[in-house]
């Protein structure tokens, strides 16, 4: 069957997304927004150079991002490669911070379905509580929607109770129509979350992409009643960008989506900027980069 695309107008969606970026978030709204943003973070390290030491340091930061500001909550999760899952699980035991693992041949996903399943099973066996898989862009761009969905469904099966986030890698999809379509395929196939990007492509969670996916979620939830979460990942590196994503979620899905079981922000460097901005709302001046630990 030929593919039916729902239309998304590029100019319109980007205008609306930019308009929401102009919301003025000041004083108490800024403080509260920053605390919420921290609580939604998937603090991420996905490098070839990752070691147990680096991951342990990041875990400490995840649990207690700023010892001098106890009102800052822990982040939602740590996101690592499968090989680091066991280390993270151990470091995070009893803290409430979850361990997420990328899988399925992240980031390109150019391996067989069997290999993707093995990758997933390994991560789950190592203790991952959340799996971030990538869709096959190869199948999607070739028009094979059935294969895209089948893969998501099979990985979902392999996950069992483990929470599944499906990465669309929107920068490789080529249009907002495709982003919306891929969002729908992933949700139909059983995704618990849909996620914008791997963080390894040329662009990530741009405001326009976020808004298209949030509108897709809104329509899917309305139609099916099944809750699906959203993860913005890639390019969210400043407090302003993080708060902009919060505004997008708030004004598209509502305040009750601002919780870590429905909304995540995948990033690493943004955490220190959030802390620095938070400290500024307290002290009235910007701190130095050296005031915040680098892991």
């Amino acid at each position, binding site marked *: 069957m030929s593919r039916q695309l*729902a*239309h*998304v*107008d590029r*100019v*319109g*969606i980007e*205008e*609306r997304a930019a308009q929401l970026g*102009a*919301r*003025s*978030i*000041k*004083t*108490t*709204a*800024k403080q*509260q*927004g920053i605390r*919420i943003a921290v609580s939604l973070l998937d603090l991420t390290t996905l490098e070839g150079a990752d070691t147990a030491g680096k991951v342990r340091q990041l875990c400490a930061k995840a649990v207690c991002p700023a010892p001098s500001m106890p009102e800052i909550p822990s982040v939602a999760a740590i996101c690592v490669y499968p090989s680091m899952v066991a280390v993270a699980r151990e470091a995070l035991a009893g803290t409430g911070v979850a361990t997420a693992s990328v899988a399925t041949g992240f980031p390109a996903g150019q391996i067989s379905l069997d290999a993707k399943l093995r990758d997933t099973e390994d991560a789950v066996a190592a203790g991952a509580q959340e799996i971030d898989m990538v869709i096959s862009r190869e199948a999607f761009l070739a028009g094979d929607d059935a294969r895209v969905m089948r893969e998501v469904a099979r990985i979902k099966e392999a996950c069992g109770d483990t929470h599944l986030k499906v990465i669309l890698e929107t920068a490789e999809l080529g249009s907002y129509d495709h982003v919306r379509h891929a969002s729908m395929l992933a949700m139909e196939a059983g995704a618990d979350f849909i996620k914008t990007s791997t963080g390894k492509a040329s662009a990530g969670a741009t405001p326009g992409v976020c808004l298209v996916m949030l*509108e897709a979620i809104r329509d899917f939830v309305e139609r099916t009643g099944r809750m699906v979460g959203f993860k913005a990942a890639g390019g969210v590196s400043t407090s302003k960008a993080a708060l902009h994503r*919060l505004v997008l979620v*708030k*004004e598209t899905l509502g*305040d*009750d989506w*601002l*919780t870590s*079981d429905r909304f995540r922000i995948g990033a690493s460097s943004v955490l220190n900027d959030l802390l620095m901005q938070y400290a500024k709302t307290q002290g009235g001046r910007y701190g130095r980069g050296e005031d915040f630990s680098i892991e």
Partner: protein
Amino acid sequence: MTIEQRRSIVWDYAPAPEATDHLRLRDRYGLFIGGTFVEPAQARYEPTINPATEQPVAEIAWAGPADVQRAIEAARAAQPRWAGLPARERGKYLFRIARLIQERARELAVCETLDGGKPLRESRDVDIPLAAAHFFHYAGWADKLRYGVVAREVAPLGVVGQIVPWNFPLLMAAWKLAPALACGNTAILKPAETTPLTALLLAEICQEAELPDGVVGILPGDGAVGATLVRSPGLDKVAFTGSTGVGRDIQTALAGRDVELTLELGGKSANIVFEDAAIDQAVEGIVNGIFFNQGHVCCAGSRLLIQESVIDQVIDKLWTRMGRLRIGDPLDKNTDVGAINSAEQLQRIETLVAAGEEEGAVRRSVACELPERGYWFAPTLFTDVSPAHRIAVEEIFGPVVSVLSFRTQAEAIEKANNSRYGLAAGIWTDKGAKAFEVAGALRAGVVWQNTYNHFDPTAAFGGYKESGFGREGGPAGLRPYLRVVR
């Protein structure tokens, strides 16, 4: 997480009011005649009110017949020298005005919001930048006039009288003054009764720009001042933007006189949503079409025509979206919908909305807390509207949209054109060929495709039928201010 816990999550934007301490308003403003502020002949001063608080902002001199005469004489005296300047020099003055508007943009935006009730987001991002853009645009035309109208020789008309409405006070003043001055005319502008302030700040800007005395005169006052102005001898042209009723009166008054006229009047513009549209963006466009500036927009998309196959879906989404509009303090940077401009306008909206309910249309108004003081009207949606209902025919000029359905493209065109007005229209479809076909068949001066209420100084704006005649903006906007000599 329990439902109760989830409901308890509220992240509200803290108040973010724009500061007003940088605004240097005088307590009193005189009339601007011959390059200076002067006392009116009969000392009449009226307060101008902030519609969001009902507090006076400043005292404004109202012109009387003697003042009108004086202003016309000053403009008449200044005109030959202004027209005789090298065209590029005239252009330089306009460039200077444009730059001064940009320099004082923040102040002008706050003033526009205080005086008229529109959200700061709009005065800051739309009104003031566009006003500057109009001056820039026509500054560039000043030495190219004959190419703009395609003639070998052109001449200015002389002295023009211009009357502008209260919905976009500074922007409408810019739409009127910039082309008139670029063409070598001198002008007398009458700002609206409820929103004279930014025009008076523009008078200060004319002084700062060292515009020759008498080239621009500004005469605040009510409709009576406008009526006196258009009936005064010594004008070569009248340009009016406002209601169709007043436009008709002006046209009658000028009949048989050697005075040129352009009118930009009311509208009941059709915003047409086809089933193949990008629905979410269409919903945004509907919101922008009717709730922009509280619906105080002559080209507002107040007649929403939706294809029957998607009407329920569009209305559901629109209603949800309307619930997220932020209504309140116009100075707050997060406000989407501000105050109604005046008590009089609020009453007109209430009357028409009551008529809509009486005639059997189904009314839904957003449930929101409205401030106690000031003039407010909650965004409102009417469904089950018949084409004969008053709310489908008459201009409401408020945040009220009437929804009608259609089945086919032909029916959409027929219904859209079935209006005494013809100012603007919107078309929402993802099919390019259909968009052009429908646009060509609509009797409306502006047709927006997959957007609404977008303005640009290079684009001609104006109406068909009872929406007026003459065009403003772009090269077409030069023609009403020029005589073709040969």
